[in-house]
């Protein structure tokens, strides 16, 4: 039994305590913990590549009676993304929050959020997932309200009530599963679940809860205000990581746990909602007046792509074609995670320097903040899906799967969505390169610009050129919980 799966949860959790105890040192504690967490995740990934999925039975009890942590390749890929994004966001936050008081408020909550994310990626127990969902939800809400302004608090409140309803629906599904199958252990459940009313109803309840949390159209209404009004590092984390967590759970439920009980046609509903989200989100991003609101609507659209993969995956038997589509889905999620966090950090940068983020008044930004504008452009490349970004490969694979399976509907959606993404990104860049003097305080301190740039580079270059590695890590065996 490997003890590695424990550390990505325990390190940020312990650091959160230290940050509460020593508020004046919180940034230092948080950054050290983020580095240590990344290290632990890298060790975990290397052991995973050698030995296959890792399990850690907490308390030494057999899963079912106790709770097991389980790291498979999907979990590992997401852990890697979140610990890298966390490092970038944390680095940025050390400069962004100017007073020690703000730092001391940010870091403990931020570390708790990280612990919750990692606990969710690693959990193999349905009720434990509920607890991680609540931890994630409450710490995210608290962070979103950190600005303290009226709009931020109002958005955080709506985020909280919606999130709580989602958790309740999820918990109701868990209760039904326990009533029928008598266990909460996901490995055992993957064997036990059959096509019957209890399984369908439980899946419907849990999915409803998760779709609210993952802001799939038309349940996305809470996301744009919450993400656009939070402090920039928090927006980055919410858009890049927190909504992704709910999508991750949807993947687990639909493709792992409930796959034997499902008619593939059911996943068309998710695909259609995803397609609608791409169009609706892109349209609103195009019309957005503020840069952060644009970024938030773009998240609604990008999440839509992820859901369009569901009917493609469910329609194929296990095998190379399906693995390729699955790899593309993960690549898409990772690329968006890096690109969107970079976009929000850059937007926060501009907002701090210019005093606002109204797109039409951004003239002169490119001259005053060249690195930040370059970051915007790089993030745009990834969001549009141009080569060499990871999203290009992912969309390519999405299209070819759609051709192969004759699911023609997705093809125009991808085309239109990409064109619209190009339009809204070029609109921003057009204003940024235009004449004007939006930014009156040029930059004195480079450390805030570097993390955003690095994140954007990962999205555009590393994931694109190294996409094959992600494929190899994720694809084989990622979808066979029951077989491993």
């Amino acid at each position, binding site marked *: 039994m490997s003890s590695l799966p424990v550390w990505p949860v325990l390190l940020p959790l312990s650091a959160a305590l230290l940050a509460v105890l020593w508020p004046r040192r919180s940034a230092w504690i948080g950054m050290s913990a983020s580095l240590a967490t990344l290290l632990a995740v890298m060790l975990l990934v290397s052991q995973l590549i050698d030995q296959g999925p890792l399990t850690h039975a907490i308390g030494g009890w057999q899963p079912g009676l106790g709770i097991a942590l389980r790291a498979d390749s999907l979990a590992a890929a997401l852990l890697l993304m979140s610990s890298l994004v966390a490092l970038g966001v944390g680095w940025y936050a050390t400069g*962004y929050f100017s007073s020690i008081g703000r730092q001391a408020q940010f870091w403990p909550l931020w570390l708790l959020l990280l612990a919750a994310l990692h606990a969710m990626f690693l959990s193999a127990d349905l009720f434990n997932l509920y607890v991680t969902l609540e931890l994630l939800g409450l710490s995210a809400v608290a962070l979103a309200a950190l600005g303290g302004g009226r709009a931020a608090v109002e958005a955080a409140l709506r985020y909280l009530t919606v999130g709580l309803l989602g958790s309740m629906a999820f918990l109701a599904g868990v209760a039904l599963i326990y009533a029928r199958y008598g266990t909460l252990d996901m490995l055992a459940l993957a064997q036990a679940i059959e096509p019957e009313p209890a399984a369908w109803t439980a899946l419907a309840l849990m999915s409803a809860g998760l779709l609210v949390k993952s802001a799939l159209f038309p349940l996305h209404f809470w996301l744009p205000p919450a993400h656009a009004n939070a402090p920039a590092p928090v927006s980055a984390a919410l858009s890049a990581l927190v909504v992704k967590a709910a999508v991750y759970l949807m993947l687990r439920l639909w493709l792992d746990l409930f796959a034997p009980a499902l008619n593939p046609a059911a996943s068309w509903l998710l695909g259609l909602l995803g397609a609608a989200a791409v169009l609706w989100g892109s349209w609103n991003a195009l019309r957005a007046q503020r840069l952060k609101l644009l970024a938030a609507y773009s998240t609604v659209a990008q999440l839509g792509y992820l859901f369009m993969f569901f009917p493609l995956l469910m329609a194929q038997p296990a095998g190379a074609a399906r693995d390729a589509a699955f790899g593309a889905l993960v690549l898409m999620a990772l690329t968006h995670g890096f690109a969107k966090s970079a976009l929000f950090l850059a937007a926060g940068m501009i907002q701090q320097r210019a005093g606002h983020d109204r797109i039409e008044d951004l003239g002169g930004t490119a001259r005053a903040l060249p690195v930040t504008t370059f970051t915007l452009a790089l993030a745009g490349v990834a969001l549009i899906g141009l080569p060499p970004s990871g999203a290009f490969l992912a969309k390519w694979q999405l299209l070819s799967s759609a051709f192969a399976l004759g699911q023609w509907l997705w093809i125009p959606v991808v085309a239109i969505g990409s064109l619209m993404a190009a339009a809204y990104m070029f609109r921003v860049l057009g204003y940024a390169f235009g004449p004007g003097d939006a930014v009156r305080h040029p930059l004195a301190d480079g450390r805030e610009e570097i993390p955003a740039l690095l994140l954007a580079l990962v999205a555009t270059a590393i994931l694109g050129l190294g996409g094959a590695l992600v494929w190899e890590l994720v694809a084989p065996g990622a979808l066979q919980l029951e077989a491993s």
Partner: protein
Amino acid sequence: MMATQLWQITDLLLALLALGLGWAAVSSRDLKRSVVFFIAFGLLLAIIWARLRAPDLALAEAAIGAGLSGALLLSALRDEGETAGVDDIQRGPIAALLSLLSIGLAAALAWVLVYTLGIADPVRMADEIAAQISNSGVTNPVTAVLLNFRAYDTLLELAVLLAAVLGILALGPARPAYRAAGPLLDGLIRWLVPLLVLTAGYLLWAGAHAPGGAFQAGAMLAAAAVMLRLGGHPGAGLPGPPLQRLLLTAGIAAFALVGIALMAAGHALLQYPAGWSGVLILLIETAATLAIATTLAMAYIGGRPVGWGPEAPTTKTVHNEERN
């Protein structure tokens, strides 16, 4: 035979009363009424837990679900002042449609549940827990699940509490204190607070073998803090901020330290060595009790106490990014 029927009538009455109180709490336009109905609902739920042979829950529900939630809601009502009171509940065709959908949903869920309970095996985890309880270090099965078999859930749950209270502290300074109590209330508080502390100690100790444990004990201590605050003590009997920070983190810290120490010794996370379970569980529970009590008390106070570490600037002077 007679006894069975009496029980069935009681069950029906309790169930109908729960639905009625729940209905009254969610549909009354007068918020003060809603809150009172909600507190009554919580107490009724405690009775139902006792009826369903879940005494641990009955204690927790009465203390937390009805007691502390009720105190929080009542304080919120008081803060809203005269403007509070009437809630605008949506009416019209949308509401009617929603009600119709609700009835459909309830019927569907009810059918699935009845069908499922008809074919499900009612043993579930009960036998396995019973078989392993002698290895858990305690004899109360609920404590065994919470502090041993599924201790990891409890660890994360303490993190949930911590996240909530940190979020509350970040929002602003504490609520204004209440005016000093009159002699009667003051006398009652003098008398009740030590009793509550004593009860908390008993519940913590008894949790190993009887209903009780860290959550119930922590809630009792928090109730003492609420009483003190209502009696005009602004700090609610809590120690100074440095110690508050220590207490807030004590529960998770105990879990983490024990867990890491055990892993260093070659065990799994929180795998207590044979013979040590009882002691370690009591140690963790004691720390957790203090943490839960402090967390709930600070959540009730509703903001940063005086002298709480480095101050963040107030909203009016914050960064540009927070002005929209």
